[in-house]
């Protein structure tokens, strides 16, 4: 077991270390997932496994072999401190797709932390994370994309958007690129903002009351994270997200 992280540990800088301290010895080691060459696999985390003391953690260590595809959809919500660690190592020509939503309320602290390693050429990765945070909640996304020296023709994208519903909520984003190959397409976009006022007025001008307009906009916002899921998965995870969202907004 590793030592309890401190604020000085970059990947834990926003973590609720106080809560974590009591259950640290019970934190399981990462689950190893290997997607065999050429195969496809999909996983979802609709609920983060609870360790105790209000702490829930999921920790995945994924190896995607050459030409394989791994699709992951996660929902970080409904626990006091929740963290999803995702470490992914991509083989040649493989693909990693991540869709994640962070929905926080009260004084919850929820984190999705990814490390995506493009170790070989021609792999692609796409990460879409949407956060909606109310009350005094903190939502954090930290995503590091590492492109190794010979991982030419990598295409890695990250889209991180957060929406705060209350003044006391906090959104932290750290989309990081670490690139050692020159022939790559790596881009990330991160925004924090309110609902589009233009769109809200447009909707109002068609007769929608402000609450309905806001609900529709938030649903669409969260929906971005799950468009890449298969229909049944999307229904399940998005349905759950929308129920939580309803209570939130």
């Amino acid at each position, binding site marked *: 077991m590793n030592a309890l992280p401190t604020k000085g540990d970059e990947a834990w800088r926003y973590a609720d270390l106080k809560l974590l301290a009591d259950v640290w010895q019970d934190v399981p080691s990462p689950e190893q997932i290997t997607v065999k060459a050429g195969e496809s696999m999909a996983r979802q985390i609709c609920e983060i496994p609870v360790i105790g003391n209000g702490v829930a953690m999921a920790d995945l260590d994924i190896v995607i072999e050459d030409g394989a595809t791994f699709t992951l959809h996660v929902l970080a919500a409904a626990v006091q401190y929740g963290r999803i660690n995702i470490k992914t190592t991509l083989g040649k020509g493989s693909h990693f797709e991540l869709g994640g939503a962070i929905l926080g309320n009260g004084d919850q602290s929820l984190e999705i932390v990814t490390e995506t390693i493009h170790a070989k050429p021609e792999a692609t990765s796409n990460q879409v994370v949407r956060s909606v945070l109310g009350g005094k909640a903190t939502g954090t996304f930290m995503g590091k994309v590492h492109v190794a020296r010979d991982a030419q023709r990598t295409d890695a994208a990250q889209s991180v958007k957060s929406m705060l519903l209350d003044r006391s909520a906090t959104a932290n984003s750290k989309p990081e690129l670490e690139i050692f190959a020159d022939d790559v397409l790596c881009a990330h976009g991160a925004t924090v903002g309110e609902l*589009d*006022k*233009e*769109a809200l*007025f*447009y*909707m*109002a*001008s*068609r*007769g*929608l*009351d*402000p609450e*309905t*307009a806001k609900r*529709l*906009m938030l*649903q*669409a*916002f969260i*929906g*971005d994270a799950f468009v890449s899921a298969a229909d049944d998965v999307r229904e399940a995870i998005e349905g759950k997200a929308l129920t939580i969202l309803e209570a939130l907004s």
Partner: protein
Amino acid sequence: MLKIENLQANVGVTQILNGLSLTINAGEIHAIMGPNGAGKSTLAYTLGGRPNYEVTDGSVSFTTSVRAEPVDAQTDDPSTSSGRTDQTLDLLDMDPHERAAAGIFLGFQYPVEIPGVSNLQFLRESLNAQRKVRGEDPLSGAEFIKLAKEKAGLLKMDMEMLKRAVNVGFSGGEKKRNEMVQMGIIDPKLAILDETDSGLDIDALRIVGDGINSIMRKPDKAVLLITHYQRLLDLVKPDFVHVLANGKIVKTGGPELALELEEHGYEAVAA
């Protein structure tokens, strides 16, 4: 139907409307023309209740015929006066969505994109929100689709477009046509159309013009067309043409005024 008196409005700290008065009766089509910066869009947005458009003086009242008491929507015939009464609302006191529910439709010069929200969902929710305010039952999914198909057909718009997110990836012309489809579905009392003709090619312009005529040219409805060009007015004949300059109406006439403007320009005509 609409009575604007001495309307003064600011956008931010700048006063744009400087005492504008205008009366529109049911069954009339009015056109407002004027140079850039005259306050045409500001008028549209102010009537729609857009945030940041602050009315500093004047009044706007909106009078429509409403049912005196709840009746079955199916048997309600607005063209007869039986069981109906006139209701006058102080528009400036109302929120944007309340104005919409009262029967005011704003055709945007730049329709807004709303990623992730489909046109059909948007319109159905909008329409049912309006019906709820008016004490009408919501339309079922099937009823709504039927209505949407009919109006999309009228504007020659592919139903597939209506399944896509609102205005996202639409061309300028498609956005404007989408506005008209929305107008058809929502079926307002008063349509304020802000440069609906801009960005349209000749064929699209004809479709939009026909759409306005078939949806809005009715005894209990009215239209306020904001435009720069005569070409839309060839298709949708206005009863009155007004020239707007420096935030007020400086001249009013019949359709011939628009032709005069086209020929001689705003300055010569408004002087």
